[in-house]
């Protein structure tokens, strides 16, 4: 590229050189890709704000009508408030559980010496290889036997710890200087006291990364809630949306209002934390 521009510098193309053609082409390619990425979002918002009688009019991409009543109609047609409550309770439970339990386990793996530590750690990591499909049926049978079907317990407890979380936090804890633990130990702090007073306060970013990953996973999860709930009152937002589609499949404006409702929480959290979130994804992805 610069070889070409160097040649042009002296020729009659000096004027042409000022137009950054290659940059234009790059932007054109990137913009058309970005267009495909963003169309479903624009479309979903536009349609959710369209009056019902215009649903089957030729489609357009940007909102020109603002029928906010669609949202209240959708929330009336299906108990979205209840779905929201269920999703919030489930997501909250999973996030809190994963952060606390993964952190405790990661502390044991990063700092404590005990027989069989590395074997146990490999075993935990190994569970990441097991596809969810394999354990789906027995997990359902166990939850059923425990009498947890249609309860928050079923939605939360089996997912309260994650091997990924333990792995992530162990890496993080290994970066915290050991001298801090040792100083606290000399001052008479217990192991768990060290975890609570030294490790946890120093691992804010690590815990937040895990918390946000757990939040995205839990809010968007579908298969497990589908299997362990039958009662419409126990449906999460994602389940409610899928059922809503089955039932009001032709009422697209209402359906899209429901879809916006279902995606808003994760999109908001992402937009608020995006730089940092993307960086976390890049780092944890590269570590494998």
């Amino acid at each position, binding site marked *: 590229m*610069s*070889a070409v521009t160097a040649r042009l510098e002296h020729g009659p193309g000096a004027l042409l050189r000022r137009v950054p053609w290659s940059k234009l082409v*790059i*932007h054109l*390619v*990137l913009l058309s*890709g970005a267009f495909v*990425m*963003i*169309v*479903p979002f624009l*479309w979903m918002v536009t*349609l959710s704000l369209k009056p019902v009688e215009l649903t089957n*009019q*030729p489609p357009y*991409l940007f909102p020109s009508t603002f029928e906010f009543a669609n949202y209240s109609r959708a929330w009336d047609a299906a108990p979205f408030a209840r779905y929201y409550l269920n999703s919030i309770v489930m997501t909250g439970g999973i996030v809190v559980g994963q952060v606390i339990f993964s952190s405790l*386990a990661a502390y*044991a793996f990063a700092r*404590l010496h*005990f027989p069989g*530590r590395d074997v*146990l750690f490999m075993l*935990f990591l190994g*569970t990441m*290889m*097991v*596809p969810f*499909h*394999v*354990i*789906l*049926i*027995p997990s359902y*049978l*166990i939850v059923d036997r425990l009498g947890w079907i249609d309860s928050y317990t079923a939605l939360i407890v*089996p997912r*309260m*710890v994650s*091997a990924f979380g333990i792995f992530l936090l162990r890496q993080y804890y290994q970066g915290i200087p050991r001298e801090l633990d040792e100083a606290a130990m000399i001052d008479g702090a*217990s*192991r*768990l006291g060290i*975890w609570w007073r030294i490790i946890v306060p120093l691992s804010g970013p690590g815990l937040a990364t895990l918390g946000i990953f757990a939040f*995205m996973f839990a*809010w968007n999860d*579908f*298969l497990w809630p589908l*299997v362990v709930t039958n009662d419409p009152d126990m449906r999460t937002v*994602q389940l409610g*949306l899928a059922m809503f*589609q089955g039932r009001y499949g032709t009422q697209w404006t209402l359906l*899209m209002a429901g879809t916006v409702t279902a*995606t808003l929480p994760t999109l908001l959290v*992402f937009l608020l934390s995006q*730089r940092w979130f993307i960086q976390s*994804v*890049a780092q944890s*992805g*590269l570590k*494998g």
Partner: protein
Amino acid sequence: MTAIARMRTGWNRANRRGDLSAAALALAPAIVLFALFNIYPLLYSGYLSVMEWDGFSPDKEYVGLDNYKALYESAMFRNALTVTFTYTVGTTLLGVAFSLLVAVLLNSGIRGQNIYRLVYFLPVVTSTVAAAVVWRYLMNPGSGYADVLLRDLGLTPPSPSWLRNPDWALRIVILVGVWKRLGFNIVIYLAGLQNIPKEYYEAATVDGAGSWDRFRRITVPLIAPITLLLIIMSIIDSFLIFDVVYVMTDGGPIGTTEVVGLLLYRQAFRYFNLGTASAMGWVIFAIVFVITLIQWKFFGAREAGL
């Protein structure tokens, strides 16, 4: 042994004991949860896979490898495997190729890198169910935006519609899979590209290499480990696809989008063939296991080498 060394061993021994009891406490919740909801279910599904059971009757019948044999002979399961493989290969190849293109363009020092990256990443954090609902309607004949746009571009929709045509339904599902995953690949690629020393490109430019040569001779080989990582991650994820087909096509038309995850779900929770469904689970496990081993072989070696 010096006094200090003796003190240290004494301290260490007390330390070890303290460590053990603290570790037991710290690990208890994780161990109980993993044992109950990962390890035990894994073994239990292995056991179920050699049984015939509907989930209700008190008796399970031992059938040996009959469930696996039946799967091997089942046209429905073979179809599901073929569909899943097609989806996996399509999503993985297109997802990796497009993301590499976008990442390289984004890394070329153009303006607005962050905003592009943000837009490309949006689908990654969007719920699959919501995405599938929206895409389903985008492809709706006559009123869906994508359908109309494609018509304007001269692509006549197949009959009766994109998602009801046996040739097209899976292609659309693949398209949604690529759309959903592209941003993730791009972010990982960008991180990798930023690790390639600028001097390599400068030296190549001095030697008269054009941008295509630089891409082919420097970027592609140096980014190869990341490409492999992304391919394997994508294969594992794609193989377990469920939500998209559940919402968009429910396996149809005529089974052309019936992936293994959906078949397993149906066998277990609609037809109550728990033995067959568990055997399916183990076949999926075996396939994913082999892929993971490949990943470990390549990446374990690479990390040890670094």
